């Protein structure tokens, strides 16, 4: 907690699945209040990179320092409370109601009393316009509703950083905007955010920094302005030509 200036430092991160080397030495820093959008062609390791940050995938080698503390197998569970994650497929717990999804972690981790957690959950549900769904099971929600609940579920733990792994890729066009505006709102409130997305205009709008991955390495990074209008590498120029 003492060192709030740098949230996260990653040094020489490697990740391989068997013989398949997905990340080949990533060096990266994330500072408080930054909003980093990770871009790159498919198979470049964007999602794996994001998933390594909270050890959904355990790094093969390299060093990660979160709030001045080296991340290890021993402390990762505690650190995860400070790194919220929103998944492409929402991953709401299907045998629990929306309310139970929201209160499970804060109550189980003894961060909140049940009554306080439920009160907070209701506030957040009201905020996203879904207070009537508190007792509903995830199966009865639309994709957009599920993802917004997943976002406030991550917020229940008041994390320092929020990771979004293609949060709108599984949504219909109408729901996408609902989810994006919720993310935008978190950004406006100063949340530190990392997003893997294919929504280029959103990336341009929300990012304070763009990171471009190719073949498991960061080959270019900069402000959206620099990145989209003055790309430095041929690879990025080629990428932008295809998508814009």
């Amino acid at each position: 907690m003492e060192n709030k200036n740098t949230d996260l430092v990653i040094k020489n991160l490697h990740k391989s699945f068997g013989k398949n080397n997905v990340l080949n030495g990533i060096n990266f820093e994330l500072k408080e209040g930054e909003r980093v959008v990770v871009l790159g062609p498919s198979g470049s390791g964007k999602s794996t990179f994001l998933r390594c940050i909270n050890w959904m995938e355990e790094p093969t080698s390299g060093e990660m320092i979160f709030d001045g503390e080296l991340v290890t197998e021993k402390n990762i569970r505690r650190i995860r409370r400070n790194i919220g994650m929103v998944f492409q497929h929402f991953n709401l717990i299907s045998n629990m109601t929306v309310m139970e999804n929201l209160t499970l972690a804060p109550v189980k981790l003894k961060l909140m009393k049940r009554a306080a957690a439920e009160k907070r959950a209701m506030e957040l549900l009201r905020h996203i316009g879904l207070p009537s769904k508190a007792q509903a099971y995830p199966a009865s929600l639309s994709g957009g509703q599920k993802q917004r609940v997943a976002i406030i579920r991550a917020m229940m733990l008041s994390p320092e950083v929020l990771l979004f792994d293609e949060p709108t890729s599984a949504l219909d066009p109408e729901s996408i905007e609902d989810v994006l505006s919720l993310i935008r709102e978190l950004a406006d409130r100063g949340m530190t955010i990392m997003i893997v997305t294919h929504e280029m205009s959103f990336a341009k709008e929300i990012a304070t920094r763009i990171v471009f991955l190719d073949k498991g390495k960061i080959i270019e990074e900069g402000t959206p302005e620099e990145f989209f209008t003055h790309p430095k590498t041929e690879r990025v120029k080629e990428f932008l030509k295809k998508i814009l």
Partner: protein
Amino acid sequence: MDNFFAKISELFSTPEYIDSLLHGFLLTLQISYFALLIGIFLGTIIALIDTAKPSRWMIVPKLICRVYVGIIRGTPMALQLFIMFFVIFAIKGFPSIIIAIIAFGLNSAAYAAEVIRGGILSVDTGQTEAGLALGLSRFTIFTKIVAPQAIKNIIPALGNEIITVIKETAIVSMVGMYDLNMAAKDIGSGQNMASYIVPMFVAALFYLATIYLISFIVKRIEKSLRRSDLRVEK
């Protein structure tokens, strides 16, 4: 046909026959019940070891489970029963009901393990990841998230296993035990009845009724477990 019905009423009005059938039926139920308790308990342990996160400490237990399940599923139940009776428990005076329970329990464990393992693996990995990302322990994730979802997939298949065991216990008559199957044969070979078809028909009704009842209960449990899949509120 008249003779058939006459024999049926004779069977049901002779206390001695009824007594034999009920005795046999009770033994069938006892063996099945205790064997299934052992089977589901051991099967759960095997499935948990089999689906546990791979690590250095789990290599040997995982291998043992794999080999155990392979051997049990790869050999006939009747042979396993014979080995128990005539090799492992070839001790004079050892109660045969216990031997039968152990034999069926160990057999059922392997099948139950496969059913439970399949149920656990059928739960979407995203559910586990959701729990991990929230900082929950593997224990909490299993008991609160994975197990309740796995049970929904396990119950129907486990119902099958229960039915299979009840029917399969009929082979204890091969080692001379007086179960429902044996009772039917015994009554049929008696001089008074002098007909196999009638007692065997009645024994079949006993089996059928039991299995029908179990299927009914399993369906009810299944239905109540599926509540969260329906678009209803709690």
